[in-house]
């Protein structure tokens, strides 16, 4: 597993992509979830009782940064199918959308635009924020291991041929 991970990330392009994905996802999710504020001053904080939420955001960002470049590696270098890529994208999107609405500007915009349908969707995403993020993490972990497995097989075939 470590060998395969090293194989992907010793390529600077994929390492750079991974860093970009992690930092951008982390910052955006922390802003949306109100761990970071940009106005009127730049300030970061973790209010008591929200530590687990912070941990879940970190886990989703880290796993997305791991899984998305690995799948791109498969597609670009090994000309593999794009099927497993969808797992990483779905996991990242579910993890990002959960809790993105709530009572902040995103939720307000959704409710203002879509009315009662938006309010129902916002309520669902807020009420099930933690379970949805846990599901997203599970999807990303499963995608990570299936990617490792297929990379092992595909690399062996490619090296032999």
């Amino acid at each position, binding site marked *: 597993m470590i060998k395969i991970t090293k194989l992907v990330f010793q390529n600077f392009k994929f390492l750079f992509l991974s860093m970009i994905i992690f930092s951008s996802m982390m910052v955006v999710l922390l802003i949306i979830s*109100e761990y970071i504020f940009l106005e009127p001053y730049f300030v970061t904080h973790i209010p008591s009782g929200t530590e687990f939420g912070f941990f879940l955001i970190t886990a989703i960002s880290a796993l997305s940064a791991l899984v998305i470049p690995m799948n791109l590696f498969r597609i670009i270098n090994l000309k593999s199918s794009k099927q497993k890529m969808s797992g990483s994208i779905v996991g990242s999107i579910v993890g990002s959308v959960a809790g993105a609405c709530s009572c902040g500007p995103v939720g307000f915009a959704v409710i203002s635009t879509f009315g009662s349908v938006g309010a129902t969707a916002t309520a669902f995403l807020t009420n099930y924020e933690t379970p949805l993020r846990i599901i997203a993490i599970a999807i990303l972990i499963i995608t990570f291991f299936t990617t490792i497995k297929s990379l092992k097989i595909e690399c062996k075939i490619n090296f032999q041929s």
Partner: protein
Amino acid sequence: MNKKGAILGIVVISIIIGIAAFASSPSETYDLDMARTHGDISTAMGSPILGNPLAPITIVEFGDYQCHQCYNWFHNTKPMIMRDYIETGKANLVFVDFAFLGKDSPKASQATYCADDQGKYWEYHNSLYTSQESKIDSGWANSERLKAFAFNLDLDMALFNQCLDSEKYSKRIQYNSQQARDNGVRGTPGFFIVGPDDQKQIAGAQPFSVFQRIMDSMV
């Protein structure tokens, strides 16, 4: 002819129903200072002032009782503001309802003014934010629970129930929510710190340090 008659009948019945609904809607008369403003914001229909009414700074909070970030602010930041600014007379606070999150939000806001009729606005406000559950519209703020909170505060239940069931304060909540929109509030909690010379907007459940920095610069 029959078709025309049916349409005419429907129109007449609709008008009668409309007039009946209008006539049966409760009249809303409150004893309020409609000229009360803080900075650019009309707080006339908002909460009573918490703290010294003559304090040089007013914190105007726009909030929804079902908003979990409002809950976070209430439990993490507000106690320090109470201790350092409101209890010392440096600032006061007005809560203005921005009830947009779910169907129970406006009802919860109305209930606070029903409690205000009996002089217990802030006690009721505090009990809502203490009892908030994480799920929106899960029933924690339905009519039955709102009445239970009132019962726990020893309010006159006949008066409270009559007030809540008649939706006496529904237009007040609509007015307050419109104030939020008119002042550019795009989520809850939203704050305006209104000082002697200017006002500053704070969006979200920001930490105490932000409020402290702004208020100290105003005094």
